[in-house]
């Protein structure tokens, strides 16, 4: 009796997640219809985001927030990947326990800090530093990208470290026994062996950086303009959605659903690819 109940309950929970996914997609798709029919493919290339005076229509294009999202994520990943790999390699292969353990714990705690805290810290403390070093207003693409990098590094480093730690000891020893140096063992044995986990960590971090709202809303400037230089303010998809949702109506609302749909599809593809890599490793 209780076995049957449990079975039905777990079946319901499992199917619920599937229906949620399909349901969210369907709703985004339905509400985005108006904008899709009005603007079509040009939505991706149009730089204007302006409501008419009566708030009923207007011209809306997603080019700027899409570019802002992609560029801030690109900056974040360019900075984060090498640093996170360095941390992971240091923790698995170089650090002694006395240094490695505290650093490991610190990394895990950093990964748990809520994004709003990164946003506040970034705006009040970090942005002025960026301004004094690189010029510009303080807030803008570069600041947002750098803080995004700081946010995803702990996550990426922790997963990569775990992946590298799965390299069997005897495999490393047999590379040393062939006369390999530490660097060669890292490059030829550890990295290829943990490749799946490392790529997975990068892709999951990429997904997180693409969708990050709170910290980026503080730091990117929230201005509807194409950034002329790396320090210029602009906007991103999640930031534009968060800022405009309260007042938007009709076509603008539909355009925002269209943007949300684009972000959803991109994130979905990225997570699927990550999943594929993780699964690919388990099958082996």
């Amino acid at each position, binding site marked *: 009796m209780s076995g049957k109940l449990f079975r039905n309950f777990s079946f319901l929970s499992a199917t619920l997640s599937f229906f949620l996914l399909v349901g969210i997609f369907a709703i985004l798709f339905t509400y985005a219809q108006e904008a899709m029919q009005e603007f079509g493919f040009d939505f991706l290339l149009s730089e204007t985001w302006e409501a008419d005076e009566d708030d009923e229509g207007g011209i809306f294009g997603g080019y700027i927030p899409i570019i802002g999202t992609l560029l801030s994520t690109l900056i974040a990943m360019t900075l984060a990947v090498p640093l996170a790999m360095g941390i992971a390699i240091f923790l698995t292969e170089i650090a*002694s326990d006395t240094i490695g353990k505290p650093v490991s714990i610190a990394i895990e705690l950093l990964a748990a800090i809520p994004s709003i805290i990164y946003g506040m810290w970034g705006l009040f403390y970090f942005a002025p530093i960026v301004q004094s070093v690189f010029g510009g207003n303080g807030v803008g693409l570069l600041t947002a990208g750098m803080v995004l990098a700081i946010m995803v590094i702990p996550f990426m480093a922790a997963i990569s470290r775990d992946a590298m730690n799965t390299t*069997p000891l005897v495999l490393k*020893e*047999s590379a*040393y*026994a062939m006369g390999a*140096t530490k660097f060669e063992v890292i490059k030829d044995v550890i990295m290829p062996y943990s490749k799946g986990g490392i790529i997975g960590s990068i892709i999951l971090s990429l997904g997180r950086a693409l969708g990050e709202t709170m910290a980026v809303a503080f730091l990117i400037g929230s201005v509807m303009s194409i950034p002329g230089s790396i320090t210029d303010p602009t906007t991103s998809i999640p930031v534009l959605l968060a800022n405009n949702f309260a007042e938007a109506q009709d076509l603008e609302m539909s355009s925002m659903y269209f943007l949300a749909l684009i972000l959803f599809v991109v994130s979905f593809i990225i997570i699927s690819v990550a999943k594929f890599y993780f699964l690919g490793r388990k099958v082996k």
Partner: protein
Amino acid sequence: MAKDKLVMEIKDFSFTYSGAEEPSLRKINLPVLKNKITAMIGPSGCGKSTLLRAMNRIHDLYPGNKYEGKINLYKEDGTKENILDLKKENDFIKLRQQVGMIFQKPTPFPMSIFDNVAYGLRLSGTKNKSELEGHVEKALKDAAIWKETKDRLKESALGLSGGQQQRLCIARAVALKPRVILFDEPTSALDPLSTGAIEELITELKKELSIMIVTHNMQQASRLSDYTAFMYLGDLAEYNTTEKIFLNPEKKLTEDYITGRFG
């Protein structure tokens, strides 16, 4: 016995693991003779693997271990070098190119069959492609795995069977033309058929180089080796020709162990 040349010589060697109070090996004296197979037998925890792992300084991947005594490696010209004096990474690399090691489990690297065998050669500076190809073919032939692999050199080494992987690891070690190969229970993870192939291979290899093998399998020691060392609780209990050890051991302890009364 007097005619046989030494390739390595362990003298008054003691070893203490990092953090341990008591040494794991005490005052070991053991010769390794050229072109001979020396087997090390003894119950688990007697220190056979510990001794083997000292002979290519693989212990030094982990800090804090203590050595005493000497382990001499004889060069072609008869001069000797105490490998316990080595300090620099470069010297360890040179040592490990001369003293290869095969582990309990096959350890193919996550790369192609060809690259596995070429790995050590590339590390030691061979870049020329046709030269590499020649050496790889020779090593695979020496390890009796050429026929099975010649049509799939570019495929991943992880696709080979366990026994093939272990022979590939031997090929990889042989490719460097070492003077000694240390085998640490090389067949303990393999089926009887693959074990037979490896044993045949080891016997074949002693024409070219010298071999030290740790084994739990008494029959394997008696089949393969020319000399046998029996170790017990960190001491070398008895060392002699394999025939003497198995047919007429000097110590009661040795006899009890090889007849299976303990261990």
